[in-house]
């Protein structure tokens, strides 16, 4: 039986970054990925902030599908708010090619010294004296490896937390149910220098519709709806919207589906266990974006795991420093955005229209959610009285 300091379950951006971080700290680390191909099928719209990504990895052209200069947000009555970095003359966002990006990240982890096994699912964990016995199934064969710590980076389907005593089961108001088409020939109708977002409870209950350009007139056209609020499936609402926009279904090159957790958790570590990325519900409740936080959390997880190994302390108490570090890094924003999300979900389409109108004529340069909300609060102090202290 192989012995590792750390076993990472899942080779998404969170798992690969965590494994790389462990390996760089000198730990003996294994990543297991149940799929035979890392990064495929994709379950993502692939949009990230340029500056945030650049703070984590060196940018490589081969996994950038497109760059965007800003975003256009459409209220339910199609009032457009344009968020643009034009003044700065700078592109602000990347649309990744995650099939390539995820593999590249896994290779970076391997280069740093991590072992990787694909087509290998973790199917259970037993406490085995002073270590963990991670039960694996590889192409139909069963075997175990031991680890001092397990890092659960197993995405929205996560089981690692549950096996280790953290209930990560999502409720119907804690997840966005998503479907997306990668379509071509969209450049005649939409400005491909921008990401586009459509809001409105009647067209996308509890979520939004997006178009993220991927170059050469193609784009990820998708929707997320909150199952507790939606009467029909995500696919139903997307198809209905596309029909209303006059977009035919004859140029679809890929169908993507998925779930995004949009409700942060209090506890993301326990004895001998750290959760990373979607498994830790680190996706943003407002945007559903989770790539960057998965990577940030992964980096922190590697450092904390290394400290634990050096001190030979794998207690829940010691590892709770991971929770604290994540909270300081990005967890506070998640909690704040959860409060904002709850408020927005209660707003009628009419209110959203009025809010969009309140921003008319304003040149929005701060592209972040915080930037937009700050401006909304200034212009609509009565509606947002309760969020003032959180954002200003």
């Amino acid at each position, binding site marked *: 039986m192989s012995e590792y300091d750390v076993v990472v379950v899942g080779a998404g951006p969170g798992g690969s970054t965590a494994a790389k971080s462990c390996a760089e700290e000198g730990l003996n680390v294994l990543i297991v990925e149940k799929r035979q191909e890392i990064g495929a099928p994709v379950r993502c719209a692939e949009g990230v902030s340029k500056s945030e990504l650049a703070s984590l990895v060196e940018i490589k052209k081969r996994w950038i599908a497109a760059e965007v200069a800003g975003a256009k947000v459409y209220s339910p009555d199609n009032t457009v708010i344009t968020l643009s970095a034009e003044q700065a003359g700078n592109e602000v966002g990347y649309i990744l090619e995650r099939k390539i990006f995820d593999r590249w990240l896994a290779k970076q982890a391997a280069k740093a010294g991590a072992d990787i096994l694909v087509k290998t699912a973790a199917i259970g964990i037993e406490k085995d004296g002073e270590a963990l016995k991670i039960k694996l199934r590889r192409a139909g064969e069963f075997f175990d490896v031991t680890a001092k710590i397990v890092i659960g980076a197993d995405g929205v389907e996560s089981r690692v937390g549950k096996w280790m005593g953290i209930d990560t*089961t999502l409720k119907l108001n804690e997840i966005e149910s998503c479907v997306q088409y990668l379509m071509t020939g969209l450049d005649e109708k939409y400005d491909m220098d921008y990401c586009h977002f459509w809001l409105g409870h009647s067209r996308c209950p509890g979520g939004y519709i997006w178009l993220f350009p991927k170059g050469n007139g193609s784009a990820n056209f998708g929707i997320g709806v909150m199952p507790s609020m939606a009467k029909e499936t995500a696919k139903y609402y997307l198809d209905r919207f596309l029909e209303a926009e006059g977009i035919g279904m004859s140029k679809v090159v890929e169908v*993507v589906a998925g779930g995004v957790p949009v409700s942060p958790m209090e506890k993301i570590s326990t004895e001998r266990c750290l959760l990373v990325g979607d498994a830790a519900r680190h996706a943003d409740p407002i945007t559903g974006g989770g790539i960057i936080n998965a990577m940030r959390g992964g980096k922190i997880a590697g450092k904390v795991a290394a400290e634990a190994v050096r001190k030979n302390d794998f207690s829940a108490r010691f590892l709770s420093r991971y929770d604290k570090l994540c909270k300081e890094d990005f967890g506070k924003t998640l909690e704040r955005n959860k409060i904002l999300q709850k408020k927005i979900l209660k707003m009628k389409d009419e209110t959203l229209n009025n809010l969009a109108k309140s921003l008319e004529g304003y040149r929005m340069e701060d592209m972040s959610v915080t930037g937009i909300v700050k401006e909304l609060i200034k212009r609509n102090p009565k509606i947002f009285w309760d969020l003032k202290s959180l954002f200003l």
Partner: protein
Amino acid sequence: MPDRGRIVVDRFKCAYCGACVSVCKNNANELVETFLTIDDSKCNCCMLCVKVCPMGALSVKS
């Protein structure tokens, strides 16, 4: 388990995304590559997976 029917997967609709796995507190749903399995002995037919499925691939059969 009370006999409330069982969940069936429409293989032609399922896009093997794993959303259904995430809402199952009994770990009845499991995705192996593109093949979704539902363990009837663990499933209590709470219907959450039916409601979360973006593709409408799950339904209950009595």
